[in-house]
């Protein structure tokens, strides 16, 4: 599929890398020749140096037969205009990054309609949503939801002395009486899709799928339940912080935001009347202690500097904060931060690239059982995909144990009429269901891809 990407900053280049891995033909457009040179050195893409609104440049890039056009420059207006022109020049689908809060209210629908945008993306809002989910059930490292929250996928890191150490998966369900499914395990650099005979070890990272209630039950039984965070401190008054504060305030949390810049702090105070805004430098430990870091349920650092976020989160951990979260944009720092003991690391650009990869895959396969949502799990080694099932005689109505699946594929959940089934061998998939599939080492774009 031919995809044009305008703007190759943080988000653009991450997108470019993951979409190239998917095998798409990518043309990257950026104004900075140095950026283009660097990108074409590293990735198998074509680079064009120029203005993404200029129709000459877009025509040169082949916008006419582009199936997907993505504008992710720093400016919302530029992105919208660029998408609008691309659409007029013949691009089939256009996606713009629109992140200014003023545009992201009711006017968004109107604007999307007028500009004929297929999708607008707002990385900060998406990040805030993910953070909100994690803060609601802090026991997990990462939570993804499928099909309107009917099914959750939770990532969890086991402690070295975890009570699960040495437990066989088949014994697990009986022992804790919760209907959960352990669908993937990462041990060191190796990734497993486990069966019932798999034995867990300390330090494993495990992925669990189940409904929200069952997962809470499981955590409770295992003595790992951390209660929903009520006192939350946010470091840095970024856009993400604003979105997140609004969500947290709406469920009655106490939110405290530390912002270095006085003018910015005042603006925050105006937009978020329910939150406490502190003007000060979050890197000063004394300030954090003074503001009661010891009594927090969760600490989230969202400043623009990755290193600062990581270090301050580690300090917060050492002060006994039960849940620390860092925003980290540079990929090479993500694993490092996790090793250093930050509970959860979020990377907005990674979320966006997941979202668009699934969008592209769904486009590619608009007739069959297409991809509804896609999440990369375990640092991208595995994928969780939700499919809309259409009538397909090869799959429909056949008990799962009789389906000849490829290796490293697991059917983790079936959602039928807002009821969720954690499937066993006798369950069947019917047309109209939504099915969640876990796949390692392969790229699925249709449900029938799971068959041998």
């Amino acid at each position, binding site marked *: 599929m*031919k995809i044009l990407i305008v703007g190759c900053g943080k988000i653009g280049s991450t997108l470019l890398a993951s979409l*190239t891995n998917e095998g798409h*033909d*990518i*043309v990257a457009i950026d104004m900075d*020749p140095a950026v283009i040179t660097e990108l*074409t*050195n*590293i*990735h*198998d*893409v*074509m680079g064009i140096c120029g203005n993404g609104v200029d129709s000459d440049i877009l025509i040169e890039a082949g916008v006419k037969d582009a199936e997907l056009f993505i504008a992710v420059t720093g400016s919302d207006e530029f992105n919208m205009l660029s998408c609008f022109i691309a659409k007029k020049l013949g691009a089939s689908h256009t996606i713009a990054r629109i992140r200014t809060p003023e545009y992201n209210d009711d006017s968004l629908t109107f604007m999307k309609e007028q500009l004929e945008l297929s999708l607008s993306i707002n990385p900060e809002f998406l990040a805030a949503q993910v953070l909100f989910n994690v803060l609601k059930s802090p026991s997990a490292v990462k939570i993804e939801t499928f099909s309107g929250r009917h099914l959750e996928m939770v990532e969890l890191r086991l402690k070295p002395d975890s009570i699960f150490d040495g437990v066989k998966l088949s014994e697990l369900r009986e022992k804790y009486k919760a209907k959960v499914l352990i669908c993937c395990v990462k041990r060191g650099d190796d990734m497993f899709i486990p069966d019932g005979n798999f034995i867990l070890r300390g330090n494993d990272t495990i992925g669990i799928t189940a409904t929200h209630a069952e997962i809470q039950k499981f955590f409770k039984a295992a003595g790992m339940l951390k209660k929903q965070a009520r006192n939350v401190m946010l470091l840095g008054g970024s856009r993400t912080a604003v979105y997140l504060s609004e969500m947290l305030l709406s469920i009655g949390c106490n939110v405290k935001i530390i912002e270095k810049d006085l003018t910015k702090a005042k603006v925050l105070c105006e937009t978020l009347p329910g939150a406490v805004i502190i003007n000060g430098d979050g890197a000063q430990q004394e300030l954090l202690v003074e503001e009661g870091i010891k009594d927090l349920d969760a600490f989230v650092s969202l400043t623009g500097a990755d290193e600062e976020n990581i270090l301050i989160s580690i300090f917060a951990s050492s002060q006994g904060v039960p849940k620390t979260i860092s925003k980290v944009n540079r990929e090479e720092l993500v694993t490092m931060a996790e090793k250093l003991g930050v509970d959860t690391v979020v990377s907005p650009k990674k979320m966006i690239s997941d979202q668009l990869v699934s969008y592209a895959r769904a486009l590619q396969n608009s007739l069959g059982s297409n991809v509804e949502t896609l999440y990369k799990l375990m640092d991208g080694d595995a994928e969780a995909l939700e499919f809309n099932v259409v009538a397909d005689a090869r799959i429909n109505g056949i008990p799962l144990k009789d389906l000849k699946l490829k290796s490293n594929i697991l059917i983790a959940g079936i959602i039928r009429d807002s009821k969720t089934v954690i499937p066993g061998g006798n369950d069947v998939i019917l047309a109209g269901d939504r099915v969640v599939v876990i796949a390692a080492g392969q790229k699925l774009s249709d449900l029938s891809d799971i068959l041998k």
Partner: protein
Amino acid sequence: MNRKMVFYTTGHILILEAILFMLPLLCSVIYSETSSVIAFAISAGIALGVGLIMSALSYTKNKLIFAKEGFAIVALAWLAVSAVGALPFVIGKFIPSYVDAFFETVSGFTTTGATILSGTQIEAMSKGMLFWRSFTHWIGGMGVLVFLMAILPTDSGRSIHIMRAEVPGPIVGKIVPKIRETAKILYLIYIGLTVIMVGFLLAGKMPLYDSLVHAFGTAGTGGFGIKADSVASYSPYLQWVITAFMLIFGINFNLYFLILIGKFTSAIKSRELWCFGGIVAVSIGAIAINISSIGYSISETIRHSAFQVASIISTSGFATVDMNAWPGFSKTVLLILMFIGSCAGSTAGGLKISRVMLLFKTVKADLRKMLRPRSVNVVKLEGKTVDDATIHSTSVYLITYFIIFLALILIVSIDGFDMETTLSSVTSCLNNVGPAFGKASASFSVFSDFSTLILSFAMLIGRLEIFPILLALSPATWRKK
């Protein structure tokens, strides 16, 4: 330095060469030349064996390559294919000395067309050997590694480094987003044009074997013939066909792609193309006037001057007359054309028109700057501003080119030939043209083994545009630190 990846890719190239040996082998089978069949079979076996061992020993999961690995892969692969490609000539006892055979093969792959064989020796060669000799032109023209890229899926997105190192020209870009598709399209255009040319030659009643061999030689802008007098004995029609196709293969292949996707106007607007056409027209005119006193008829004058100009500027090196007997002015014009060469992104050698254009424009901008020190100047090529880094690297290229040129002349002059012979043979080899003047005009066998080897390297340096070979020979590239 990811050495394993360098040797791994080189191993693959040798396996590919073993497969390519099958074509001349088939040719020898058809003409029932037993000794040649055996020679090709043994050579293919060696290429396959060495290639497999090399690839197996240096298999690595780390496929990451950077610019320097790109240079090293290209240099090593070209040395390896030439070294192995020379084997059939030696095993078949057609060229007894390995150094001579190496020269002949390098001359083939680099599309130079300089030969150490005399006219009678060429006509005594087996059909299979002559086929292989010209086929090396065809493979080398578009590049062996580009060929490998087109047929094998690449593991990393970084093969652009290999392509940049192998494809001639100051700026190498892709024509479609994926490098493999780019390589495929280029090869398809190349094959298509070759087939069309064979068709034209067959229409002129040239035998199929001759047509194939000459099409290979023209497509790669190489110039190995199969007769003592090159193509002089063929009909004027055939000579005109070859003239036209030599020029066609001297044009940037990206323009053919533009025409194929229907952007005819943007292809025809190419400044490099117009410049190329202008130089060709002026040179033909100048030489036609200069040789009009020799005693050719008018049509012969035009045909010979056009053929020779096309042959030299496209760096092919076919000939319809003995150029060495022409007056000094015509020979000098041809010598200058050797330096200029054809368009970037074609199969021809030389400095390349776009590089020469860029250098002239830089000089112009600098002169203007001297006159008006505060004036701001930008150099534009094909309507696009050229960044300083490209201008800088082009200037450095020219300086390095001339340093190497002078060094080569100095080394080759040890053999004690006159200035014209030494100068023209080094120019011819470094620019991958083929024919030389003076004592080397008939064959390069007059040079000593040492000079033959030096000239072989000159051809490789010229084909790969200096830096890959230079960097591969410098120890700093291979050091671990």
